[in-house]
């Protein structure tokens, strides 16, 4: 689905994103004396207009739908850059590029594309994904939400939790187990409109809005199905792998920016007669951050390529990259908080927000224990 982008073109795009963050997003977030937690709808709309001018909208969605149609590798590079601001981990470029369009939407019929995807792109919105259930530990095979056939409709019962970016989406997709005529259950995806659901908001670690939904006899038409019955988990796995790579890239983005703050502060903050940058403890923290970020970045780019070419163990590559990138970013951000002392604990700098959000990223989209188990399974 992607243009083949040569490195040079990607380098230019990366510079465009860098300039976009500097010229538009950082000023939008800049509010002296105020503690910015989100951007207003008007500001986001303005950013989206500017992004459109720069040719950056719906990075993943196909060009014929109105998107930019970039490959996963290219998006990983650009989103690392786009994450380098206060709200960047979960709202890269301040949502200027619109919402997310998971790869399984490629399976959508023409009617579905016209009804759901195209309007979303023109609204600057995206698609939420309702997969996890409360306390389900990120296991795709132990989900309980079911759908039972009734004529041309399906009746869904169950619940979904920790749905992210709902406010940035005009529609969503839900993973359910469909009951077949023989009584067996097979996973499938259905398109949903947010307004047909009862939604509850939960704020995670004081910083991120997530949503949960309870589905009680919710009816969806069979024509809202994406892909075949039985295909649901495989489609979600592909989305998951892509999302893991991108979360990894964005984590590296905020941590790289944190390292910039750390370097600058270490050079100007004087204690015991010399700048922090001259203390071996601090030098080691900064050097290790630099080293480990580069290692994580290489894993993310390697995983992106493996997913694109569906190389053997592509899923594992994605999981490993996600784990390495989020753990590395978490350690970097922790060290940079430390280097800043009281200023690190304060919300004047974005580091304080990143400290909270990276904790979410570590348990989000499969946590270390699950991934370790999967790695062991494969190598043993």
């Amino acid at each position, binding site marked *: 689905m992607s243009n083949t982008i040569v490195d040079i073109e990607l380098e230019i795009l990366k510079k465009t994103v860098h300039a976009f963050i500097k010229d538009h997003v950082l000023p939008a977030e800049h509010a002296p004396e105020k503690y910015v937690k989100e951007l207003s709808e008007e500001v986001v709309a303005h950013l989206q207009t500017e992004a459109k001018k720069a040719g950056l909208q719906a990075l993943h969605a196909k060009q014929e739908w109105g998107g930019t149609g970039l490959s996963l590798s290219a998006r990983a590079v650009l989103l690392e850059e786009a994450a380098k601001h206060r709200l960047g981990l979960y709202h890269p470029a301040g949502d200027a590029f619109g919402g997310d369009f998971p790869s399984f939407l490629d399976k959508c019929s023409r009617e579905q594309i016209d009804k759901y995807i195209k309007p979303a792109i023109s609204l600057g919105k995206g698609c939420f994904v309702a997969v996890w259930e409360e306390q389900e530990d990120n296991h795709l095979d132990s989900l309980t939400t079911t759908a039972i056939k009734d004529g041309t409709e399906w009746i869904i019962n169950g619940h979904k939790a920790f749905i992210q970016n709902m406010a940035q989406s005009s529609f969503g997709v839900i993973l359910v187990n469909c009951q077949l005529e023989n009584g067996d259950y097979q996973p499938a995806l259905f398109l949903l409109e947010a307004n047909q659901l009862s939604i509850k908001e939960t704020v995670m670690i004081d910083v991120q809005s997530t949503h949960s939904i309870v589905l009680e006899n919710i009816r969806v038409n069979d024509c809202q199905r994406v892909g075949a019955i039985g295909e649901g988990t495989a489609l979600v796995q592909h989305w998951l792998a892509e999302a893991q790579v991108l979360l990894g890239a964005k984590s590296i983005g905020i941590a790289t920016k944190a390292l910039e703050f750390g370097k600058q502060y270490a050079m100007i903050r004087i204690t015991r007669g010399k700048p922090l940058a001259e203390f071996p*403890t601090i030098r080691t923290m900064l050097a290790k951050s630099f080293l480990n970020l580069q290692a994580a970045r290489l894993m993310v780019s390697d995983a992106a390529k493996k997913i694109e070419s569906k190389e053997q163990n592509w899923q594992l590559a994605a999981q490993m990259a996600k784990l390495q990138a989020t753990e590395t970013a978490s350690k970097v951000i922790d060290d940079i908080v430390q280097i800043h002392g009281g200023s690190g*604990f304060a919300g004047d700098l974005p580091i304080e927000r990143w400290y909270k959000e990276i*904790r979410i990223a570590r348990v989000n989209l499969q946590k270390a224990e699950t991934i370790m188990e999967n790695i062991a399974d494969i190598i043993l």
Partner: protein
Amino acid sequence: MFHFTESEEQRRMLDKASEIMVKYVFPNEKYMVPHRGLPDEILKPLQQIVKDNGLWAAHLPKEYGGMGMGFVSLGLLSEVIGQSPIGPYIFGSMAPDAGNGEILVHAATEDQKEKYLRPLANYDIRSCFAMTEPEVSGSDPRTLQGTAVKDGDEWVINAHKWYTTGAEGAAFAIAMVVTDPAADPYHRTSLFIVDTDNPGFEIVREVPVLGDHYVGGHCEVRFSNCRIPEKNMLGRRGEGFKLAQLRLGPGRITHAMRWIGVARRSLNEMIDYSLTKKDGKKTLADSQIIQNYIADSEAEIQASRLLTLHAAWKMDQGDESRKEVSLIKFYGAQVLNNVIDRAIQTLGMYGLTPNTPLEGLYREARAARIYDGADEVHRMVVARHVLKEYQEKERLNEPAAVPK
């Protein structure tokens, strides 16, 4: 002489405190307001219960309504009440008032004690401590820039401070400023008591911060030509550094034991969840991964607890315990953060929701590695002591022993 058990008197105190925690403290956590704590109408009656049970203000001498006990007992009690962020407020031993109370006990004049210490000890008023300045490194208080200049029988203070914890709602501040710029670095500063209704005192803002358990926020404050009477100097001129240090020793015992209370509570959250949460037929507690988390946390908590009680015991013997206090400061703060992190890891995304206390504890805990001396400074102190101890030994191969 080694014995690792509480005296009967200590046991009674701890049992009573635990009972109050279960009956009155934990159930009221739901009324806690970020940066403001419990509303007075809930807080005051709970404080009365603590007072009636003789467990009020453990850090203060009996003559000021406190319990007048040694550091070991103080530490043991702090561990129990520290399990809840509102515990110290209900038991009258919260920072920064506890530390300020201790300085006042040591250094205040009789008049100052009547006017400030008595109402503070009774929680009729709150206070704050203004030392750290944004412009210079708090890790090196010899570099403070705020000044007080004598003018007739008044002092005129000009200073810009931040992280003045609890300033919002405080009746007075203890300010640490330079009075003798020409003196050696340890004798330049003095302490002053400043009423917060002084027109020269201004709260610039409450700094937005990661954690929200402290009442009255962490404020940026300014003293602009702030005139105070001569008699409001606290302690002797040039003693600022010394008195601020004095405040920190006992404070680190109570902090470290409070952290152990928090760590223990987080471990209990993790155990409780892992025993009930099913992963297929098994519970999470059946998984060796989670068992490792539990074992590592238990080991770290025990280690930190024994280190802290040992430091407290040495202080009860009249030792300054500089090395031991620095050890528990950085080790204890790390253990606190480690255990909460493992607990969140075990609960997954659920552990970051407001449905458990973990996310709030996690945010607050990060400060422990910064306030009262950052990790790096305390490690430096410990290393210096250990190097010196080694160099003073006559032989390389002394028998291994509890360090003197």
